[in-house]
């Protein structure tokens, strides 16, 4: 087999440049992160870094602001995943029919996904505006009182959730629609022949066949919401107070406000660990389902 000669060498020589760049961009910095998390080290203090074992990690665990950020991120995650999956699924079902302007409808719905996050943050600030915003106008028009949304510490996190849901429900819709369209017509015909009602077909055929898509949706939304930063930074900056501070935002604040290298590294390591746990759980769930 003449043409197999040089296969591995060729594969190595074309793949290595990317691998080296990624290693430089990732392994170096993360090695640094791991090491610096063991040091008491701040850029604002002239003292040299001091090795302090797990002191920083203890600080993180006792830090109420970290726990608050963890709570906020979890709330956004749970509320976001549930709402976006449901709403996205409903819209996907509505789109999964034959009608004129279907392509147009999908295109319009998909627009939010690719909008510059900073722009949508700014735009929603206008929409949420207490006095001149269209949202309060509609609410007052319908007889409500309106509120100050992002400036109200009780509603601020909900406002962030709304923006995230507005941006990412279409993503869920697109995935589930792709799933719906990939179910072969014959499956439905078979169900019809067997005398299944449309309700039974929905529960027994459509939903089970869509399960892998739902798993994918939940996985992607979990990961994305876990690192949510841009909209929060622009909309509330974590405020009022720390009412909307997410993990990414708190890490940012702890870095640019206090320049604590060691502590922020420990914060980062914690997020890596949490992300890892989530990923592991997911892999387990997916593997288990496939196994049975």
């Amino acid at each position, binding site marked *: 087999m003449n043409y197999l000669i040089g296969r591995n060498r060729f594969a190595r020589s*074309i793949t290595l440049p990317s691998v080296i*760049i990624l290693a430089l*961009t*990732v392994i170096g910095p993360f090695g640094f*992160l791991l090491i610096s998390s063991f040091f008491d080290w701040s850029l604002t203090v002239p003292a040299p870094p001091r090795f302090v074992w797990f002191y920083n990690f203890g600080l993180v665990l006792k830090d109420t602001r970290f726990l608050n950020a963890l709570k906020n991120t979890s709330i956004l995650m749970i509320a976001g995943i549930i709402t976006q999956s449901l709403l996205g699924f409903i819209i996907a079902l509505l789109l999964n029919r034959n*009608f004129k302007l279907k392509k147009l409808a999908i295109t319009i719905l998909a627009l939010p996904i690719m909008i*510059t996050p900073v722009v949508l943050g700014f735009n929603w600030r206008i929409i949420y505006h207490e006095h001149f915003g269209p949202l309060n106008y509609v609410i007052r028009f319908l007889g409500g009182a309106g509120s100050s949304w992002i400036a109200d510490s009780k509603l601020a996190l909900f406002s962030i959730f709304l923006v995230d849901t507005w941006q990412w429900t279409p993503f869920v819709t697109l995935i589930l629609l792709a799933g719906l369209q990939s179910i072969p017509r014959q499956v439905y015909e078979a169900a019809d022949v067997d005398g299944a009602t449309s309700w039974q077909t929905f529960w027994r055929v459509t939903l089970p066949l869509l399960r892998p898509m739902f798993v994918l949706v939940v996985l992607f939304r979990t990961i994305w919401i876990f690192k949510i*930063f841009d909209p929060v*930074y622009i909309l509330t900056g974590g405020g009022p107070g720390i009412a909307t501070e997410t993990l990414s935002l708190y890490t*940012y604040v702890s870095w640019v406000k206090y320049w604590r290298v060691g502590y922020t590294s420990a914060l980062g390591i914690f997020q890596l660990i949490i992300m890892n746990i989530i990923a592991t759980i997911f892999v387990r769930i997916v593997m288990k389902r496939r196994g049975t």
Partner: protein
Amino acid sequence: MNINDKKYQEFRKREKRKKINNLFQNLLLTFFVLLFAFPIYWIFIGAFKQKGEFFHYPPIFLVNQFRIDNFIRSLSLGGSKGVADSIIVACISTVLVVILALFAGYGLGRFKFGGQNLSFFILSLLFLPPIIAVLPLFIIFRYLAIVDTYLALIWSYFLVNLPFAIWLIKGFIEDLPEEIEYAALVDGYSRFRAFWKVTFPLIIPGVVVSALFVFVFAWNEFLFALMFTRSNVRTLPVVLSELIGGHGIQWGELSALSLIAIIPGVLLVVFFQKYLVRGLTFGAIKG
């Protein structure tokens, strides 16, 4: 057939119910589409509003004339620098990422170089919260004295865009059977020429799609741009965020600049909708 036939009546009833059902679904869908379109419409209309029209109650939902004052003023407020820098960074980043990813994707997809471990390592990079990379990258960039340069941004954008493009292109290559290259190899083509002459032309759509996604990601990126630049380099999102945070927000100018900023993303959605799902799920769904 008798009109009074029972079966026919039943059939008509069912048809009527179907029609009503369909109408209801159309209405519901229209409502959702309008709901999701509204904020985008608001960006668009805001770009043409005059100063007083933002602070007006009830809010102004329509503008009578499309004046471009806001755009012109926004460009002098740092907008032109923002647009230029965004174009420079996004273009260079895209070209480098796509060239690297084309080969790496080929190596991983065709030859399974590094096995599953390397592939999964690359995929896992996409799941990292970028904020974690900010701190160590900042210290490294400071040490190399490249903070606030194009290089810092282009380098840091590798972190997300390179794994993304590699995975996407790898997927497109895996769609093609290896056999298509055999004929060329038997004819004495080198590995590289076989790839270039046979496989590459077939995955051009995939390469284009990857390039567009990478361009939009780099164009929209905010966190790294915020952390690694000061005054020499100012991409559009950074310019926007500073205008938002500044005293006396200039709504009109900001909206005009926002409209400019969303153009690449909107074009991607409108013209490459077919590949949207595939791109956004890193190739997990071929769509």
